[in-house]
C-alpha cells in the first residue's frame, strides 16, 4: 500500500474527529484532494487558492533571499569590515558571511511568523470545524520582510497572534477580513514597540546592541543605520546613490529594499494574473502625482530650506518610488484581493489614493518617515466604500433603463 492509499484510509477512518482539519491541511499539501464536482459545472479550471497563494510566495522568495544577504551586508558595512558593493553583483554582497548573518537573523523571523501564525490558524480551524484556509501562507511570508532585522522574536510572536486573531479570525477568517493581516501585524508592532520600529538604530543588525554596549561604557563607535527616508526627514544629506537604492544595497526593513527584485516580482505577478496590474500601476501614479505636487510647492518657493518638510518635499518626484517601501507596498500589499477594492474601476481609485496618501504621510509625518503601510490600511477601510459607489453606477444604469422604458 502506497503513501497515497495509507493517507486516504487514515482520512476516511478519522473523518469524524475534531482535529481532522489539521490533518487535512497537511494532507492537501502533499496531495491535491480526490474531490469531484457535484451539481454545477462538471469540470473546473486548474487554479485553486493554494496555487494562487503559492504564486505570490514565489514572487516574494527573491526578496527574502536578497534580504538575508543584505542583513549581513549592512551589518559588516556599518562595522567597516567590508567595502561597499557598488552594484547588484558586487563582490562584497553575495558572500557566505553575509548569508550567515541572514540565516541567523532573518530565518528565525520567518520561522516565528509561520509557526505562530499557522498555529493560530490551525486552532481556529479546529474550533470552528472548517478547513485551514491558505490566507496565512502569504501573510506569513510578508511579515518577516516588513520588519526591522533586529526585532525581538517574542515581539513578533505577540504581534502575529494579535494580527491573525484581531485582524482576521474575528471577521471570519480568510476572505472576510477588512484590514491586510500582515500590515495589521506591522501596525501593532509600530504602535506597541515604537523604539524597535523606527529611528536610526533598528535597521542594521547589531546597531541597537552596540548602543547598549556604549551606554555601558564600552569604547566603541556607534553604528549608524539611518534609512534614506530618515536622512531626508532630518534634512540630512543622503549617502547612497540612486543605483544603491534601486539594487537595494541600503538599510531598511528586511525584504523591501531591492526595488529591482520587487519589479521582477511585480512582473511575475502581473504576468501570472495573480496580482492586479491596475492597483500596482495606479498606486505608482498616485505616488508620482503627490511627489509632483510637493515638487511644485518647493519650486513655487512656498516653502524654504529652513522648513522641516523641505528635505522630503524637495526629493525629485520619481525618486519617491525608489526610496522607502512604496514599491513593495504597491506590489505585495495593496494588491491583496481581499482587502483591496474588488471592482476594476474601484481598483484604479483605490490604488491611486494609496500612492497619493503614502507620499503625503511620508512628507508630513517626519517622526515616522514612512506612510505606506498606514496609507494602505486606511484605504483598506475605504475600499468597500469605493466599491459601493462603483457598483451603484451599474445599479443606476439599470434604473435609468427602466425609467426610459416606462416614461
Amino acid at each position, binding site marked *: 500500500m502506497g503513501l*497515497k492509499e495509507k*493517507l*486516504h484510509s487514515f482520512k476516511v477512518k478519522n473523518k469524524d474527529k475534531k482535529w481532522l482539519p489539521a490533518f487535512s491541511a497537511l494532507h*492537501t*499539501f*502533499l*496531495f*491535491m*484532494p*480526490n*474531490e*469531484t*464536482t*457535484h*451539481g*454545477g*459545472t*462538471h*469540470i*473546473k*479550471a*486548474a*487554479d*485553486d*487558492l*493554494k*496555487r*494562487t497563494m*503559492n*504564486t505570490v510566495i514565489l514572487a516574494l522568495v527573491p526578496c527574502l533571499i536578497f534580504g538575508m544577504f543584505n542583513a549581513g551586508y549592512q551589518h559588516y558595512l556599518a562595522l567597516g569590515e567590508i567595502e561597499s558593493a557598488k552594484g547588484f553583483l558586487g563582490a562584497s554582497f553575495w558572500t557566505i558571511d553575509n548569508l550567515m548573518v541572514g540565516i541567523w537573523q532573518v530565518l528565525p523571523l520567518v520561522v516565528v511568523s509561520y509557526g505562530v501564525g499557522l498555529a493560530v490558524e490551525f486552532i481556529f480551524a479546529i474550533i470552528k470545524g472548517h*478547513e485551514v*484556509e*491558505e490566507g496565512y501562507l502569504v501573510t506569513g511570508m510578508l511579515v518577516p520582510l516588513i520588519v526591522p532585522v533586529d526585532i525581538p522574536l517574542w515581539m513578533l510572536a505577540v504581534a502575529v497572534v494579535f494580527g491573525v486573531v484581531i485582524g482576521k479570525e474575528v471577521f*471570519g*477568517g*480568510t*476572505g*472576510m477580513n477588512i484590514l491586510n493581516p500582515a500590515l495589521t501585524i506591522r501596525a501593532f508592532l509600530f504602535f506597541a514597540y515604537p523604539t524597535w520600529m523606527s529611528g536610526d538604530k533598528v535597521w542594521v543588525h547589531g546597531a541597537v546592541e552596540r548602543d547598549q554596549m556604549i551606554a555601558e561604557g564600552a569604547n566603541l563607535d556607534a553604528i549608524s543605520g539611518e534609512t534614506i527616508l530618515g536622512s531626508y526627514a532630518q534634512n540630512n544629506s543622503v549617502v547612497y546613490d540612486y543605483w544603491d537604492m534601486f539594487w537595494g544595497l541600503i538599510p531598511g526593513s528586511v525584504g523591501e529594499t531591492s526595488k529591482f527584485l520587487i519589479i521582477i516580482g511585480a512582473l511575475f505577478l502581473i*504576468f*501570472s*494574473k*495573480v496580482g*492586479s496590474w*491596475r492597483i500596482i500601476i495606479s498606486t505608482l501614479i498616485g505616488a508620482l502625482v503627490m511627489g509632483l505636487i510637493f515638487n511644485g510647492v518647493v519650486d513655487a518657493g512656498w516653502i524654504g530650506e529652513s522648513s522641516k518638510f523641505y528635505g522630503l518635499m524637495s526629493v525629485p518626484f520619481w525618486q519617491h518610488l525608489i526610496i522607502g517601501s512604496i514599491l513593495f507596498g504597491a506590489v505585495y500589499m495593496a494588491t491583496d*484581493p*481581499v482587502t*483591496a*477594492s*474588488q*471592482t*476594476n474601476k474601484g*481598483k484604479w481609485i483605490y490604488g491611486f489614493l494609496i500612492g497619493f496618501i503614502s507620499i503625503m504621510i511620508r512628507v508630513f509625518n517626519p517622526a515616522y518617515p514612512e506612510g505606506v503601510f498606514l496609507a494602505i490600511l486606511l484605504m483598506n477601510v475605504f475600499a468597500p466604500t469605493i466599491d459601493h459607489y462603483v*457598483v451603484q453606477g*451599474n*445599479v443606476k444604469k*439599470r*434604473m435609468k*433603463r*427602466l425609467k426610459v*422604458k416606462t416614461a
Partner: protein
Amino acid sequence: MSNDIRIKKGLDIKLKGEAKKTTDTAVLSNFFVLRPEDFHGVIPKLISKVGTKVKAGEPVFYDKSNEDVKFVSPVSGEVIEISRGAKRKILEIKIQADKAQTYQEHGKFDVDAATPEALKAHLLASGLWPFIKQRPYDVIAKPDKMPKAIFISGYASAPLAADLDYTLQGKEAELQAAVSALGKLTEGQVHVGVGKNASSPLAGLSGITLHKVSGPHPSGNVGTLINKIDPVNKGETVWTVAAQDLVIIGELLLTGKFNAERIVALTGSEVKSPRYFVTKLGSEVATMIYDNGVEKDANARIISGNVLNGKEIKPDGYLDYYSNVITIIPEGDDYELFGWTKPVFNKISTSRALTFSWLNPKKEYDLNTNTNGEHRAFVTTGTYEEVFPLDIYPMQILKACMYQDLDEMEALGMYEVAPEDFALTEFVCVSKQPHQKIIREGLDLMLKEIG
C-alpha cells in the same frame, strides 16, 4: 436587418471528443422517463396512474400552480412505475413504450389565421408549453404574461455542444412554423442569434430579427443575447426557447403530432466514436452510450447536457427533457501528488500561475471531474469579470444571493440572469464556489418572495 453581437469576455473550453457529423439512429428505448425535476419549480399533479395507457403527446401530469401547463408523454405506452422520494415527491414517471406508436391527434393548426389566444391554448393543450421558458427566474413561462420579446440562440458555443447548424439541417419548415407562432405571442420581436461564420437553417427564416454572434463562450448563451439586445427590467418578461425544441413545436403545428424525436450529440473524451444520434426525449441513455461509446465499467461521468450545466446521470439513467447532448468524461476521484504547486500543462486555466494552457490556445484538453482544489471563501477578484460578458457585477450579485438581500439582488440585475450565465465564472473560480447553485437559490427566493 442584421445586428452583429461580438463579445470579448469569455472562454472557449476546448475538450477532446467532439461529435463527428454523422448521425446514427439509436436503438429504440423500451422505457421512457419523465422527471418533474427537469422542469424547475413545477409541482406535478398526476393525470395518469400506474397502468394508464397513454398515447404519444397525451398529458401525464400538469403543474399544480399553473393547471394549464401540461406535460405529455413522449411515446405511446403504459405508465408502469411512479417513483417517489422524501415527502412523497414524485421523482420519475416511467413509461413502457408500445411496439407500434400511436399519437394523440391535435390536427394541423393554421398559425396565420389563429388569434394569439387560440394559439396559446393550443400550445398549452398539446404539451408544447414547457419548451417555452421565461426570464426572470429561468422557469417555464407563465402563460398569462405577455413577453416583451422572445429570444432564441441558434449558436452553440458551450464546450462539446451539439452543432445546431448540423442538427437543425432540413428542418426549415418546422422552424418557420414555430417562430411564426412565437411571433404572435409577443408584443415585441423574435430575436434569433446565429454564428457569424456559420450557415444556420435559422438564418433564412422570416418574421425574426437576426443577430450574428461571434466571440468566445458564452456568446451562444441566450442570456448573453438578451443582455446585449434588450435586457430584462423589473416588471418585464422575456421568453426563451431552445433551438432544437422549435422543431418539435413546429412539427406539431404542421402535422398535429407530438413527435419527441431529437438529434442528440454523444460527446466527450471517454467516447470512442463521438457522433450524433436520432433519439427521443426521455430515452434510456444506455441505448446510445455503449455502441462504440464508453467502456461498460469505465470510471466515467455521464452527463445529460454539457459539462458546464448538464445533469449527472447514472448509466441506467434517462435523457433530460431539454438536453441535446450527452457528454461522458473521466471521473477525477484520485489524489494528485503536489497537484497544487506543480506546473500544469494538461488542464485549462485563465491564469498563468504555473499553468500553461495560455501557451497553446488551440489544444483540446481531456479534463476530468476533479475539483482541482477545495472549497474556500471568495478571495481573488477580477477573475470572473474576464469570462463574464454581461453588464453585471458577478461577484457582488453572488454575494447578494448568499446573504439573501432581495433589494440588492434586484438592483444588481437578478431579473436578467439564469444559472447557466454563471457557469464560466464557476469553472474558473479559484475558491471553487458553486455559482450556479447560488444563483438558482437566489432566483427561487425572489420567485417566492416577489413572484
